[in-house]
């Protein structure tokens, strides 16, 4: 008996695959299932299949470090992620499921004059766009997180930080399952162990998918996969502004709750928080070389551990429990790519890089609206694929930072 056993979610798997659906969603992770959930709950569209090649939440949804925040660097992104923060805040209530959502506050540390400028700018644009973030000095940082070594072990001194009180975490698997449950309850079919092997087209329009269980006709096909979107898109001859990179993290064993906020540092290329279970959860930036390999690397563990210890010296004697790797889709301008693709009937939600988890509710809600109405909602219009050809890239590298 432990307090973390899931006690309420009821997943009702379909017994057979229908031959045709209005919408087929490739990828049973957070984004795919949330889109199905909002299609069903907000638009009454339930003739929907979600196809997952492994088990639901088995990709990046189950490998990420569960951080929710809206402190991005460009207005369009701040507004979008703030919508997600708001939806997350009420998701437990809406789904009536315990998602272990906890508001913790997020400190993003500046170690240089350039870092101060960046965090001040972040605070200003966040505030202007409805996401609360303030620039704080070292004294305030110490109050928020007494464990930080403000001298940075004499190497990376802490000059200041942006503080985002809404920064929070939730249990990643439960978010996935709550969306799956809600969608399935209204009639959406979710299939595990069903990989897509091809996409059917007729006169330039997508008409369905080929799967390991045979063909399925579809009015709309949405790729909501993480890591392998290039392969899916190539099935309709579409090239994407995406490169796939490994992203690694590790956790320690469980310790008594004592580390309250989420702490991130671009200068040190890492971040840390304490999970509800008591593990210290530590991550870093993406691996620079594009790759689809899920191997965990030793240099990541060694260097990330070293860097975070300079900021949080108490980490030294904690014991490492496990490290793991996800592969994430990083777009050319470090912002997501959502919506229409120019291929009739084929939509994508990708480019989630290192921040897909926090976008699940808003991404799902907005894509559902697009599918239901045929019109791209204003909130995600800036993230359309055609922005690259229109010279309207959404450069936000500074926010790609660490998570």
């Amino acid at each position: 008996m432990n307090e973390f056993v899931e006690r309420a979610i009821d997943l009702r798997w379909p017994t057979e695959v229908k031959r045709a659906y209005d919408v087929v969603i490739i990828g049973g992770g957070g984004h795919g299932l949330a889109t199905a959930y909002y299609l069903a709950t907000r638009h009454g569209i339930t003739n929907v299949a979600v196809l997952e090649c492994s088990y639901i939440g088995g990709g990046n949804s189950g490998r990420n470090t569960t951080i929710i925040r809206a402190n991005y660097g460009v207005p369009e992104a701040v507004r979008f992620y703030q919508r997600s923060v708001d939806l997350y805040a009420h998701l437990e209530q809406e789904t009536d499921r315990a998602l272990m959502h906890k508001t913790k506050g997020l400190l993003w540390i500046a170690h240089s004059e350039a870092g101060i400028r960046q965090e001040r700018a972040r605070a200003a644009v966040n505030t202007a766009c409805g996401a609360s973030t303030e620039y704080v000095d070292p004294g305030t940082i110490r109050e928020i997180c007494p464990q930080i070594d403000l001298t940075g072990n004499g190497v990376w001194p802490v000059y200041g930080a942006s503080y985002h009180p809404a920064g929070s975490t939730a249990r990643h698997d439960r978010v996935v399952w709550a969306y799956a449950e809600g969608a399935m309850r209204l009639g959406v079919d979710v299939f595990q162990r069903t990989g897509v092997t091809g996409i059917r087209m007729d006169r330039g329009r997508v008409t369905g998918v080929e799967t390991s269980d045979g063909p399925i006709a579809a009015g709309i096909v949405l790729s909501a996969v993480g890591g392998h979107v290039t392969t899916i898109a190539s099935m309709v001859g579409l090239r994407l502004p995406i490169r796939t990179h490994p992203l690694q993290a590790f956790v320690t064993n469980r310790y008594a709750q004592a580390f309250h906020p989420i702490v991130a540092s671009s200068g040190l290329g890492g971040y840390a928080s304490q999970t509800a279970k008591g593990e210290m959860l530590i991550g870093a930036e993406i691996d620079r070389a594009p790759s689809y390999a899920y191997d965990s690397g030793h240099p990541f563990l060694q260097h990330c551990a070293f860097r975070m210890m300079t900021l949080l010296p108490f980490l030294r004697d904690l014991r490492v429990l496990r490290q793991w790797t996800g592969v994430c889709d990083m777009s050319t301008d470090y912002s997501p790519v959502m919506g229409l693709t120019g291929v009739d009937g084929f939509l994508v939600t990708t480019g989630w890089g290192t921040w897909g988890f926090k976008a699940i509710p808003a991404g799902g809600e907005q894509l559902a609206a697009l599918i239901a109405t045929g019109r791209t909602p204003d909130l995600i219009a800036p993230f359309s694929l055609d922005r690259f050809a229109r010279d309207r890239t959404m450069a936000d590298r500074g926010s790609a930072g660490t998570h």
Partner: protein
Amino acid sequence: MAEFGGQMAADSLLTHLLRDAGVAIGGGCLCLAGDCPHCLATVDGVSYVRTCQVTFREGAAVTLHAANGQLPPLESPGERPPVTARTTHCDIVVIGQGPAGRVAATDARSVGAHVVTLDAREGQDVIGVYPGPLVVARTEDGMRHVYPRGEIVVATGASEIQPAVPGNHLRGLVTARAAAELAASGVPLGQVVAVGTPPDGIVCELASGTLVRFEPSSDPTRVGAVVMRDPGGVETRLACDTVSLGLGLTPRDALLRMARGMNVRGVGDVLLPAHVPPCPVEGTVCPCAGVTVADLASVHARGFHELELVKRATLAGTGPCQGAGCVPHIRAFLAAQGAALQPPFTARPVTRQLTIGEVAAGAHHAVTPRTALHEEHVGLGAIMERLGGWWRPWHYGDVDAEYSAVRTGVSICDVSTLGKMQVSGPGALALLEHLYPVPISTLAPGRARYVFLLDERGYVIDDGMVARESDTRFNLTFTSGGATFAEMWVRDWAESLGADVRLMNQTFSLGAINVTGPRAAELLARAGVGAPPAFLHHGQADVAGVPCRIYRLSFTGEVSFELHHAAADSVRLWHALLSLGQDLGIRPHGLKALLKLRLEKGHLIVGQDTDFDSSLRRLGCEWAVRLDKPAFIGRQAVLRTNRLPLDRQLCGFEMDGEQTTSEVVCRTPAEGATIWDGEDLAGVVTSTTWSPTLGKSIMLGWLRLKDGQLPTDVTIDGRTARRVPTPFYDPEGRRARG
């Protein structure tokens, strides 16, 4: 610190505690092999230590985890000696030195291979097999990183299956192997009942039938009896002090699975098929996370059928033993629900635990380089700051005086951090014509030009200077922060184009000191340069006896001479200039003053004022691209994007000082402030400063067009600002030309 490793497990801290200290060890079936979570303790401040794997050190502070039922604290550590990491390259690595591992090592050595053996019982805990291939072990002497050229032999054996029945939390339960080891080391076991395969060399009662449960003795924490059931369903209760459990073996194959696809081979028991125990019916399955059979049944009934989903829904297998104890039972449980037997979880590092401090051994921070003048700056009291990837003087204590020295007298600045590259060869001109968006062929030897570097998207990636030395030889500069990328960029294009050129990166080789101010020429004259180059020219000369290439450009807005020289001469040149300029009021200026000076001139800083998608049109620098040039990187993109409507532009802004009752206060918005056009968020300020010369705040910032127009009056930081053309200071550029 506990002494790790040492001799045999029988001399472990755990057996010591059981035998000599009489410590009431926490419950659960002890394995003595590092597989189970039942002997975990905090030893000298490090928690989650498997006491069965640690040799006893007199005076070690030991707290068994189970003793207080609390999670260990996240506390600040005391001092510890540094941990070293040592690298070995060898032919073969053999992990595990049981019988199979010893044979493998002997065989490999017999054919002359360099073999490294790593054995947990010798205190060499392999934590993972990583890409490389790289085998990492934690040892009593620090970390070991072993790179095999050939095979990795995994001989880690098998672990014993834990009991998953009610009462399996009681004290007095041991695996059959552990029972034998404890008895051999003199731990009194009392009356022993053996379930399954009996232990070697111990007198015990053999229990027959199916294990049902353990029952406590008069001490509710200790086993008093084991209950078995025969095929007819009849239960038998066997009284005992200790239960030995020989429930079968499961391969300890995490390293083997982790190394899948590498040159790896298992030998010995690690290749055993995993024994599938009977489906558990009641009790705790995962002692680490406290997951019961009822929990498994509950989540399974609600659709969690996949092993991974069951793990995630219950957290079984996520504790210190990482599923070693529970996975066989969960697989058996799921198989009994009618599904095929599912493979175990993906094997991930770390397979044996170690501290963050240990795993970090051998890591270093990325270096922040220092110029040859670093000690001079520190000696002058400079506040040093990381900027553009270098340590640079931010200021020397009086920014206003540093600023004034440039505007009214003479000053020097260490600009050694600039990227510098020499390009020579018959193909040099053609290469540079391709790299830069302006004509290079029209640049005569002896001339220099300010240029942007564009990427293929037509976006600015760097800026700097091209100076022509001869028909076939050029010197380029890049920004301090962009120099590394620029070298890669130029080399890549030189190769792609097959250019017949020689490229030398001289960033670290050459020091550079900028001499600037209305009296700069006077200072140079005193240093022996009577006829310095004219504006946008360059030439070779000795300055105070130091051979220099002098570039006449200006970033500060005043007359400027950039003196490039061998790095070894920087200190001599620096002191000579300071000394020669003493009566001219010379003082060096730091970056803070320089950023103010350049902003008055409206010069942008790539990386601060620009972004990923800064085209020259967006920067208001269309003069810096010549589309009549037939080919250069980014040309097609510039043509293409110029046909699209402009959305925003980098603009100059000015704002008056605040008038209080008695004076004008120079309050300036912070960099990063938002720009408002009425109620609309219209942009962000990238650079700001108070201009003492102009008596107002000046800024650069991104401004969105509205209805195709740039607004003129905007609000920044709650105050009115005006969009104005740049430069703010000396727009005709008379001062820089001298």
